[in-house]
């Protein structure tokens, strides 16, 4: 009896799964066009899955082993089950293989069940709680029905009752594994995930590459709505990406805004996008909510506004404005989903189409438009900080080895100390450098992350035109945000440069003995990785090398390197300042205090400002350039760093 029932069950499940798949593909294709390398994407998919995806999954050894056993067992078992039971291929060898793979999957599912016995908060519950049982049903069911095929037990063992029971178990397993895969069950992640890997919008990320620059918006098409106002305004492969989410909550666990109790949870956000692309409410979501926002009150559809002008829609604007664009979620996501791209796309719509950027953001944008800097200072005063430094100007010099990009920190008294230290180092090392002076403008980082692509492109184009008139080999800057934008986001607009963060440049100078330093005699030091230097650009080593070359013993925070926790200063988050239960910089300072270090070295004006804003007593915050400059052997050719000197001397 099983012989007749199994093929029917399997073929029916397959057929329904194909219908579901077609429907899902149709949903994704409602998104805007985005060209992909179709065949090469499909061909490289297994590699991306086995290498790149598992590279991320393997950060959690328990789950990576569990996943290998379960998913590996399932893929083999499913194919063999279709061949052996679906098409009735009578092969003892295949039957044995099938039994083995089903067993392997069963063992895996035991571990899934164990993780689910007392699941951490970041995991979604609801249908996900039945998944281990479904996995067991499938593996055990397939295992049992294959025993007669392999000749272990006689084909006619048991009565019709046993057969009916077994078919029930197999049907359950098939339902979850085949139907659930394309009709929106937990197994959807396997189907959508595989295709997402094949058609990822940032294929450069595979094979150890990096692609972090935001993609430019085409402003020339005046009819097309700007940014993502409705789910169908996303590119189709972005929609596909949302659908790939496995609700593992790793993004949630690392999100600084979520930890601070701001109304953002990257996992929920991706799930809301899934709700939007399929239509419905978020009531079916069973994970942690946005802090302070109950689940079940938001709904959406592909053609409905994501953010309402008034009242509730799919997502509230505070959620989108809470993000610091720190990319911790993207870094942690095993499915390689691009949260930041999605958030910025929605911000673009809010700013460029609805014009309802929160007040402070509007002020910043208006200042950027009128004065080329976010605080509304006169563009003619950009060089005031260096009035006594006699800095060489590109406009007079014409060419130099290094163009020192000052950034808007030039207007900030705290950052001016860093800049002066950097100039001191460059002079000590005899570097031939020049600055753009008052011709420099804001890089556009802030405007872009506020969603104002138009102002970003205008600033970028004008900067590129200015840079075209200067001759230099490389740009050096002490601002990772300018660094990232100049290096990764200007090329798309026609400006390609060799750009170094000052820590990289100084590390290089030190490696070449371009200046001498006295060894550091202070106490323990820790280093805070700026998001835009670390996760965005992969520079974790150079700053540490500089500190080591200074003779410092760097104690690492638990969250450092690619796991570094944001200071809260990126992505225009401090401008908008969405309230939470705690402040992100306070949490980061806690991380720093835990190391027992008395000083934290930083490499970013934003991090400096955010961390120094934490209530005292707290470890001192010093930029890498300040630390190096304070230990330079060569007598400084310029005035001492009056404000920072006393504190530095205390540490000697």
């Amino acid at each position, binding site marked *: 009896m099983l012989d007749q029932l199994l093929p029917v069950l399997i073929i029916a499940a397959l057929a329904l799964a194909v219908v579901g798949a077609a429907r899902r593909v149709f949903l994704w294709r409602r998104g805007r066009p985005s060209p992909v390398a179709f065949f090469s994407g499909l061909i490289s998919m297994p590699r991306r899955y086995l290498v790149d995806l598992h590279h991320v999954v393997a950060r959690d050894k328990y789950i990576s082993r569990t996943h290998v056993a379960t998913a590996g067992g399932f893929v083999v078992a499913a194919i063999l089950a279709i061949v052996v039971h679906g098409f009735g291929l009578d092969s003892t060898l295949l039957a044995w293989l099938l039994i083995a793979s089903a067993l392997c999957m069963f063992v895996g599912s035991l571990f899934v069940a164990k993780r689910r016995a007392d699941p951490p908060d970041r995991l979604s519950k609801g249908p996900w709680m039945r998944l281990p049982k479904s996995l067991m049903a499938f593996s055990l069911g397939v295992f049992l029905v294959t025993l007669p095929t392999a000749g272990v037990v006689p084909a006619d063992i048991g009565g019709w009752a046993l057969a009916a029971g077994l078919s029930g178990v197999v049907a359950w397993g098939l339902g979850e594994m085949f139907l659930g895969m394309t009709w929106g069950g937990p197994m959807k992640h396997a189907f959508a995930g595989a295709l997402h890997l094949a058609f990822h919008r940032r294929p450069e990320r595979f094979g150890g590459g990096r692609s972090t620059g935001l993609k430019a918006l085409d*402003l020339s098409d*005046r*009819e097309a*709505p*700007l940014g993502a106002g409705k789910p169908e305004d996303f590119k189709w492969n972005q929609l596909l990406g949302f659908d790939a989410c496995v609700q593992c909550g790793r993004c949630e666990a690392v999100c600084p805004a979520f930890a601070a109790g701001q109304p953002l949870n990257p996992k929920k956000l991706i799930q809301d996008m899934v709700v939007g692309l399929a239509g419905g409410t978020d009531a079916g979501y069973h994970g942690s909510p946005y802090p302070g926002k109950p689940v079940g009150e938001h709904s959406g559809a592909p053609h409905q506004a994501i953010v309402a*002008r008034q009242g509730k829609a799919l997502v509230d604007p505070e959620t989108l404005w809470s993000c610091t664009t720190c990319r911790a979620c993207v870094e942690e996501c095993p499915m390689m989903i691009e949260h930041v791209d999605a958030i910025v796309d929605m911000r673009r719509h809010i*700013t*460029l*189409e*609805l*014009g*309802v*950027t929160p007040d402070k953001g*509007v002020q910043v*944008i208006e200042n950027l*438009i*009128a*004065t080329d800097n976010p605080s*509304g200072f*006169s*563009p003619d005063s950009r060089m005031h900080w260096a009035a006594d430094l006699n800095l060489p100007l590109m406009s007079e010099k014409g060419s130099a080895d290094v163009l020192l990009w000052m950034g808007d920190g030039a207007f900030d008294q705290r950052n001016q100390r860093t800049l002066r230290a950097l100039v001191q180092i460059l002079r000590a090392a005899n570097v031939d450098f020049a600055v753009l002076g008052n011709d420099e403008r804001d890089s556009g980082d802030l405007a872009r992350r506020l969603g*104002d*692509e*138009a102002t970003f492109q205008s600033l970028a184009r004008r900067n590129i035109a200015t840079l075209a008139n200067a001759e230099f080999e490389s740009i050096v800057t002490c601002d990772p945000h300018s660094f990232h934008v100049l290096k990764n986001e200007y090329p798309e607009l026609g400006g390609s440069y060799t750009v170094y963060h000052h820590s990289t440049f100084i590390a290089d100078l030190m490696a070449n003995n371009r200046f001498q330093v006295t060894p550091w005699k202070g106490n323990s030091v820790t280093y805070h990785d700026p998001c835009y230097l670390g996760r965005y650009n992969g520079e974790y080593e150079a700053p540490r090398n500089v500190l080591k070359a200074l003779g410092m013993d760097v104690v690492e925070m638990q969250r450092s390197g690619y796991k570094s926790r944001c200071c809260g200063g990126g992505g225009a988050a401090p401008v908008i300042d969405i309230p939470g239960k705690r402040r992100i910089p306070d949490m980061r300072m806690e991380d720093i205090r835990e190391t027992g270090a008395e000083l934290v070295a930083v490499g970013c004006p934003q991090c400096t400002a955010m961390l120094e804003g934490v209530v005292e007593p707290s470890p001192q915050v010093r930029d890498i350039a300040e630390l190096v400059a304070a230990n330079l052997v060569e007598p400084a050719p310029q005035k001492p760093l009056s404000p920072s000197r006393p504190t530095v001397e205390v540490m000697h």
Partner: protein
Amino acid sequence: MQLDAESLTESESSLSIAVLVSVGRHPLTGRPRRADQDARALEMAFSVAGAAPALLHAGPCDDPSEDALRCYLGMGGGTDLDSLIVLEQTADADIIPALADELTALGPQLVLCGTRAETGESSGMLPYLLAERLGWPIITGVAEIESIHEGVVVALQALPRGQRRRLSVRLPAIATADSAAPAPRASAYGPAMRGALTFSNTGSADDEARQDWLVSPARKRPKRLKIITATSARERFKAAAAKSQGGGGKVLKDLSPEAAAEAIQALLKEEGVLR
């Protein structure tokens, strides 16, 4: 700012408002922008429920000023506002006749504009001259339009030091927005670029008065030092916060218009303004 729905009647739901907008100038960098008070005037127009504001600009129109003008259109996202009528004029034209003709053709019940332009003569005379030409009443320095009911607008006029005066004026009328009016909403790039500039072909009339003028750059005038002889912090604060008080002056209340006019004329003669 939205008015009560109750205070609306059929005729008001189709209330037509024209907002006169000009090209502004950023005080620090001099870059063209939307003029602050004009933007407030447009915001005020949006605050009148059921109103469909029409945007009107008279003046020269080059690329930078087009970008600035589009900023007003950028405020129209989510409303019906999607075009701006441009009466192109030469740089030294008298724009009053063109504006008056266009307004007569448009027939709005209320005309809103800023109190004073940020470029050009910036004399603040335009609303008065226009009112004179159209024969309409004018309310200057409005901070808020409270209601428009049965052809009468009730507005709050901004006076120094946060004082307000409630005025009722029969429509059609001209009202100018004070800097104390609510801040304008942000201008969004999408609607700004998508909005249409409709050029209306009107001739420009030469500004005859201006031809005899001699224009020279403004000089910084010496400022009279305020000598404060305060002995306590409180007195110093009072002195700093106080507006300079003109010595004499009379407050005349409940006068007939004729008597008021006579009083003003007498003062002007006394001051030697009229001879």
